């Protein structure tokens, strides 16, 4: 598997003396859907700010497609790594939704024709085309979040980092978000999702990295990680509902199948009860 981001022995301390990252090493592979899971203050956001050079390593190094982030500008790296930040209010400034999406494309020097084509495409994809002339601040919070993602996707980065995209979103919005992530994955994009929302990552992701106190404390498939109660407790997280119910059932079949979704749990219950032949 091709490595797209290589993090080695990365350490970072904020000016106030707070150590945000301690000796972090991580590989992100092409086309994977990776989750960086951790409670608030675990160092997740600091880590992803190293991916496009917003923060430069104080110790260790970060390479994006083989390029050391210390030797490249944020603009150069951002063409490859698009970060969608948590709060859409921190980026909107244009009078129209259209201009907001076109902003990055203009910065990267695309032609008018390309800008028009790409903005139209991405606004349609995110059901925002009808709002193209509306001010971004008049959108609903779900639409704002979609616009934030759209404004990054417009310039087609290979790696898309979503920082806490589920904060303040209802379940319908979360399901839609999951659908967009699946769509992006079909286009062979590498997705990195940073979250503390453990319920959101039970389905649709390839790998989970758990962070706590600036360190990576665990790494594995969702099925391994989301059933590791001790690891999650260490990271100040609690089990998602389905694994918790499954574990409470106390049946040996649980450990074999480790259900993560409602359907998987239901099928396990049916098997245990012997209803299904």
């Amino acid at each position, binding site marked *: 598997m091709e490595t797209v981001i290589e993090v080695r022995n990365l350490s970072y301390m904020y000016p106030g003396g707070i150590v945000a990252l301690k000796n972090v090493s991580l590989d992100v592979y092409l086309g994977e859907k990776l989750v960086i899971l951790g409670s608030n203050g675990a160092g997740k956001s600091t880590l992803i700010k190293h991916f496009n050079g*917003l923060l430069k390593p104080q110790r260790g190094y970060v390479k994006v497609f083989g390029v050391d982030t210390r030797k490249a*500008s944020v603009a150069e790296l951002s063409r490859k790594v698009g*970060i969608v930040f948590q709060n859409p209010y*921190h980026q909107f400034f244009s009078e129209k939704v259209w201009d907001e999406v076109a902003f990055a494309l203009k*910065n990267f020097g695309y032609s008018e024709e390309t800008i028009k084509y790409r903005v139209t495409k991405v606004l349609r994809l995110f059901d925002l085309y009808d709002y193209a002339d509306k001010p971004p601040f008049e959108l609903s919070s779900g639409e704002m979040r979609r616009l934030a993602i759209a404004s990054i996707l417009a*310039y087609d980065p290979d790696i898309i980092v979503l920082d806490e995209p589920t904060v303040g979103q209802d379940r319908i919005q979360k399901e839609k978000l999951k659908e967009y992530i699946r769509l992006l994955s079909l286009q062979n994009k590498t997705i990195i999702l940073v979250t503390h929302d453990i319920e959101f990552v039970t389905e649709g992701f390839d790998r989970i990295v758990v962070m706590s106190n600036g360190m990576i404390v665990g790494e594995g498939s969702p099925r391994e990680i989301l059933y590791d109660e001790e690891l999650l407790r260490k990271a100040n997280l609690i089990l998602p509902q389905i694994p918790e119910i499954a574990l409470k059932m106390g049946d040996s079949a649980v450990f074999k199948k480790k259900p993560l979704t409602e359907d998987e749990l239901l099928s396990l219950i049916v098997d245990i009860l012997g209803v299904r032949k």
Partner: protein
Amino acid sequence: MRGIMESLYEMFIFRRENKFLNNVDPRMKFLTLIILMTPIFLTMNPLFYMAMFLFLLFQTFTLANSRRIFFSLKGIVKLLIMFYIVIYIFNAYPNFLNLEAAYFSFISIFRFFLLVYMFTLFFTTTYIDDLAQALYKLKVPYHVAYALVLSVRFVPTVARDIIQIYDAQRSRGLELDKGGFFERLRKMLPILIPAFIISILRVDFVAEALESRAFGSSPKRTFMTELKLRKHDIVYILLSFAYVLTTYTLIEGEVPFLTWM
């Protein structure tokens, strides 16, 4: 820009620290600040400025969290260098190889730096609620004191917002260090507009939060911890006063404050 905002954040963020200066009564600290500030305006002698600088350095190392103070100053020093260049250009015009202009520009910046240093020392070591109480005890109406304190309280919050906005816009390819002067100014808009919008929205939140907790319903107010003058507050102000008096008299050959009157 990130550096300056990080410095502002460090300068105004509240962290209770167990250092001497942090425990000095804010009223006495403010009075000391005035005592230290006044003679700076009475002279342009670099020797006296140096003496004041050494005094501030001494306080930083022995009485406060020096790491935090130096970091707060770091971002400001970059700004001062820019100011120096501007002042030099004005002073030296039209002869740009001008030693005298360089010297006077330096003195002006040194004076400004000392003032910034003093205020940094004050704000990094003063708990903002104590400041509100100090103003209240000086008979400033509490809602006025609180408004003043709120404006200081929100400096780190706005600084953090600007850092986030700066990061978000740079992630979308905004390059502030490219282009001519006016081009760069124009590029500040994507940072300033969200910062203003967020701040305006926040005003509403704060107003609602204050009202819902019955702010201002009673003109009389009590505090969890009452400020009290203690011996070390008096010692601090007296020693500072003695230092300023001695150094000024020795360097300038006249007694400050007295001649001033």
